[in-house]
């Protein structure tokens, strides 16, 4: 089993949910708003301006990258569905700009369904 943690744009959550259902993965958990920052990349013109010492460009950069609102979708899937789920999330969320988000895949050792107590891959179906 794999846990797929996707940090995505807030306005892409509904589209991602639909795409995952169409792909046969209906179950997910989502957080509300989370705040974060990435590698802190900024527009190249502003960077050039700051290097040249323009005060407006330096003022825009600030001391630290701004925090951006995102949401986190967490999906737990059996190993064989992992690749497909990742491809679905990437296809739905990709705009090609910085800030589209990240996907992390971590191993899950056990899943237990609370209602029946059964565990393993059965609990995911």
């Amino acid at each position, binding site marked *: 089993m*794999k846990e797929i943690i*996707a*940090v*995505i744009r807030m306005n892409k959550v509904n589209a991602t949910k639909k795409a995952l259902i169409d792909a046969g993965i209906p179950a997910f958990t989502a*957080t509300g708003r*989370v*705040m*974060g*920052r*990435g*590698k*802190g*990349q*900024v527009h190249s013109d502003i*960077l050039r301006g*700051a290097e040249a010492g323009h005060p407006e460009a330096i003022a825009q*950069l600030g001391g*630290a*990258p701004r*925090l951006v609102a*995102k949401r*986190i979708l967490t999906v737990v899937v059996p190993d064989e569905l992992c690749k497909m789920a*990742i491809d679905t*999330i*990437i296809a739905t*969320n*990709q*705009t*090609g*700009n*910085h*800030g*589209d*988000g*990240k*996907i*992390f*895949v*971590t*191993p899950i050792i056990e899943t237990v369904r609370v209602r029946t107590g059964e565990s393993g891959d059965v609990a995911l179906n």
Partner: protein
Amino acid sequence: MLMIRTIVRPEKVYDVMQGMLDAGFPAVTKIAVVGRGKQRGLQVADVVYDEIPKEMLFTVVADIDKDFVIRSIIENAKSGADGKFGDGKIFVSAVEEVYTISTGERETDPLLPAKGV
């Protein structure tokens, strides 16, 4: 790669994030959480507060950077020189794959440090 989840006091969160930025690890996500620890929450007379607000920071780093990042977090998250109950916890777990959505690329190299700035 490793995911480092840190639970810190809300008033320390900007110190910790600035410390990580200075250490060259800008990428981080912050979630507001509530919880209790080994001390079973805070007790004031007969009232027990066991849902204490904290901030959870999570970041994914290369294996070799783990100790460096953790040291930077601890340095900034501690209250005073010795630390106090409620300063938080750090959990480290394995991450098998990392993808950047904007390029669709699977990242095999460590997350790159910030450019410029």
